[in-house]
């Protein structure tokens, strides 16, 4: 079974995002970029299925600027067999990415697409669901456990107030939550080997997809700041403040 894993290049999760001085976007220049952490979990899930003999080939895909090659090399070092970059300088919305992925799915015919549940830059949480809808496929989002069968997959997912297990018909899209696994690190020998693995570059035009956005970013700004309060000395003072000043208990 072939599996497709989309990976996104994002600002590293340890770096606090700040608006550009003119509010036109988020400052990214000179800052460390990494693979979206939820996509690392998706890669790890695919690799474990391959190690278990249930998956024959893992194809990593990234949509974005030329620099996304770096993210794809990371995916190859982790265990992807080959990679596809859909190269564009346009700022891509989740719907455009889903359309690009759809064309690649039709070309590659995977039985499963595993996506991160959201990217930690735009926090949209849309691409996997949109791809499933465009393909008319089943979806299981926010997965914390995956059991793969031949025609179905059993996926445990996190819902408000508990867990549910879904039986989904394959082919399908699964999106990963934090609990699914703990991703491995790429080893040095594998990083060297990854340089020789195939990486194909296409453009949205090659795939016949219009990626023009219908959303206009008007500005980005710091959120309203919350004022820090005071330190209290003991429990008695805390209770007094909560009762008589804040009046919340």
């Amino acid at each position, binding site marked *: 079974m072939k599996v497709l894993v989309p990976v996104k290049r994002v600002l590293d999760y340890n770096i*606090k*995002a700040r*608006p550009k001085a003119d509010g036109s976007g988020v400052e990214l220049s000179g800052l460390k970029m990494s693979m979206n952490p939820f996509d690392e979990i998706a890669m790890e899930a695919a690799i474990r299925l391959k190690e278990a003999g249930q998956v024959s080939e893992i194809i990593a895909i990234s949509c974005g600027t030329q620099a996304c090659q770096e993210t794809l090399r990371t995916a190859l070092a982790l265990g992807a067999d080959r990679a596809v970059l859909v190269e564009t300088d346009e700022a891509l919305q*989740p*719907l455009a990415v*889903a359309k690009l992925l759809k064309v690649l799915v039709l070309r590659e015919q995977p039985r499963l697409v595993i996506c991160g549940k*959201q990217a*930690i*830059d*735009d*926090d*949209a*949480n*849309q691409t996997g*669901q*949109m*791809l499933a*809808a465009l393909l*008319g*496929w*089943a*979806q*299981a*989002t926010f997965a914390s456990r995956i059991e793969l069968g031949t025609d179905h997959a*059993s996926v445990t997912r*996190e819902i*408000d*107030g*508990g867990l*549910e*297990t*879904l*039986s*989904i*018909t394959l082919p399908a899209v699964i999106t990963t939550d*934090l609990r699914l696994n703990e991703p491995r690190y790429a080893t040095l020998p594998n990083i060297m080997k990854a340089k020789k693995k195939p990486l194909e570059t296409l453009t949205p035009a090659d795939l016949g997809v219009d990626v023009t*956005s*219908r*959303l*206009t*970013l*008007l*500005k*980005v700004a*710091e*959120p309203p700041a*919350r004022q*820090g*309060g*005071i*330190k*209290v*000395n003991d*429990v008695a003072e*805390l*209770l007094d403040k*909560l009762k008589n000043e*804040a009046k*919340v*208990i």
Partner: protein
Amino acid sequence: MTILVVAEHDNQHLKAATRHVLAAAQAIGGEVHLLVAGQHCAAVAEAARALSGVACVLLVENDALESAGAECMADLVLSLVHDYTHLLAAASASGKNWMPRVAALLDVAQLSDIVRVDAPDTFTRPIYAGSVWATVRSEDTIKVITVRATAFEAVAETGGSARLQKVDATSDAGLSRRTHLALNDSSRPELESARVVVSGGRGLGSAERFSALLEPLADKLNAALGASRAAVDSGYVSNDYQVGQTGKIVAPDLYIAVGISGAIQHLAGMKASRVIVAINKDPDAPIFAVADYGLVGDLNQVVPELTSAL
């Protein structure tokens, strides 16, 4: 403008998030309709007629909806949405699951997790775990939106007199079905709608101490229990306790953070709370920068003392 809000409910009661989403709809303006779709959920629809500012309640009863997945819900909403200018649902585990399918099938960009309505076509939403807010204008003919419930004041439960319209709509693609459901013990208030939240971090040190120290305090305050991602990752509690950008977004009247350092991703999930209390032994912990009342001390002493003084 006519706005369709999709209600969240458990077939018996409307969840509180719905009233917050209705407030966002009213901030956009125009006539607001509420869709109640489920299995034997007529009582929910009947109660929803009284909600302030709702002109029409659409009721769809379909047994397939009980165990069906996002595919089914998305098809149902899609069949009803064409006469509307805006489609809104809560940015909950449920809304996040099916809404993007509707957007994709309408060929429309979705606006996720809005916190402010700037104009009927312009909205503000947090990005980068809430470090930055983006203001975005949509040129799509139907605006598809999920709403961060805590960012909007709920509409009143009474005062409305909406008409009730039953709609026959069936859809079951049969692509997915639920085989098992494990709901947590619900003796506590729901995390996202509780008036008081007691939340624990890695400072608790173990699952045993998490429950031994925080449960009695939460009992006294009739509070929901939450946790930081660090506490979840350490295995003290399950992931549905997680408060933060990758977990639940809460805004209670009182949020008590115990042994939580205050990572950006955690602050993004709770800093809209009305009053924040932080208990931490590290006086330089970032949580104190957002806390109204900070208490520097050993949580093993402070928490039991607080519990017994209440």
